[in-house]
């Protein structure tokens, strides 16, 4: 009897010790840890594509396919986004009716700051993207906001990206539970399947970069924001980040959200943060 009790007591103690040892790990797995997430995200792509130079991921499908890359390099001599870039430069410098310009709304006059967007506004408790900041600047100066999916917005962001080319993406997550929540929400949005096709963003851009989907070669998710905005031959025009999210949703047969919906802002925050350290390459050109 004594032996049985001793065995029972021993087993119980062992179980309790095991539980005590594993419990913190369970808690840790649920904790939002953007630094660990970014490291894991980058390592996944670096290991999956060991021959691709790290800074080359920002060139999307061209980093995955040598033939396509050669064609693109030739195209870059007369890039298709050049008109948008020129227009954006002019728009950026043209004063509003009140005499102020976009430069008055941004740090460093808006030059070379693309790598810091989106940022988390601790006053508002929300993610502020570059497109949103530009429209808020317009409204604050008595101008009507631009469409988030049309040419004017793409031209402005193209110019701002161009002035930041080569600068490493540098997104901060402040010590604020709301910022961590926004990051986590963005991550969840990125991995959540939606639409009749039952695709998540990750279905294409994590599981299948470099593979063809119909005639296109899928871009890796790593660095995908660094190239925005983009000229797409498929669109015969420029496209903003908003336009990219909206069309991605439609392609999976999901009704897109309104441009600059919280979900889109958060997923942009997540994707930009995990690309920290990779250079800005926008504006980009894509097939």
């Amino acid at each position, binding site marked *: 009897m004594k032996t049985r009790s001793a065995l029972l007591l021993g087993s119980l103690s062992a179980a309790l010790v095991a539980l005590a040892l594993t419990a913190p790990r369970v808690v840790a797995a649920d904790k939002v840890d953007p630094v660990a997430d970014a490291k*894991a995200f980058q390592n996944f792509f670096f290991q999956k594509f060991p021959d691709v130079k790290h800074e080359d991921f920002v060139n999307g499908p061209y980093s995955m396919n040598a033939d396509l890359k050669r064609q693109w390099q030739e195209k870059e001599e007369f890039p298709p986004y050049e008109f948008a870039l020129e227009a954006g430069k002019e728009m950026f410098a043209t004063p509003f009716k009140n005499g102020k310009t976009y430069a008055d709304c941004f740090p460093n006059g808006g030059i070379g700051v693309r790598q810091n967007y989106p940022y988390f506004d601790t006053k508002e408790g929300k993610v502020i993207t570059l497109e949103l900041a530009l429209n808020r600047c317009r409204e604050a100066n008595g101008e009507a906001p631009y469409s988030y999916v049309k040419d004017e917005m793409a031209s402005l962001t193209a110019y701002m990206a161009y002035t930041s080319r080569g600068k490493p993406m540098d997104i901060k997550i402040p010590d604020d539970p709301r910022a961590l929540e926004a990051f986590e929400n963005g991550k969840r949005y990125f991995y959540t399947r*939606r639409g009749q096709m039952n695709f998540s963003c990750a279905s294409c851009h994590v599981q299948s970069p470099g593979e063809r989907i119909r005639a296109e070669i899928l871009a890796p998710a790593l660095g995908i924001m660094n190239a925005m905005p983009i000229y797409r031959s498929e669109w015969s025009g420029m496209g903003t980040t908003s336009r990219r999210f909206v069309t991605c949703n439609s392609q999976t047969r999901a*009704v897109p959200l309104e441009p600059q919906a919280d979900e889109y802002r958060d997923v942009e925050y997540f994707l930009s943060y995990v690309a920290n350290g990779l250079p800005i390459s926008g504006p980009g050109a894509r097939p």
Partner: protein
Amino acid sequence: MKRTLALAMLLALGLVATARAATEADYKAAYTAAEAASKEAAGLRNQWTVTVSMLAAARKAADSGDFDRAIAAAREAEALARASIFQATSEKEAWKAMEIR
């Protein structure tokens, strides 16, 4: 004999009832159910484009008086909306399986 006759009449009546052409009331019931499911999906931020198209197809068929086709489209829309609700509900946890760790 009488019982057999009564049963036969009941059966015949039943057949007539099922074979009758769909009415506007039937369409309205099917459409209301589809619309409610579609609204639920939209509330979950997971509306499918095909659900919206199928609801529009149902309305168009009903406007032209083709209630058989309208009901079929409304039922299809409801099935699609229910599938999108299932997707949104299951993905609340399932997305984690895809996460890079």
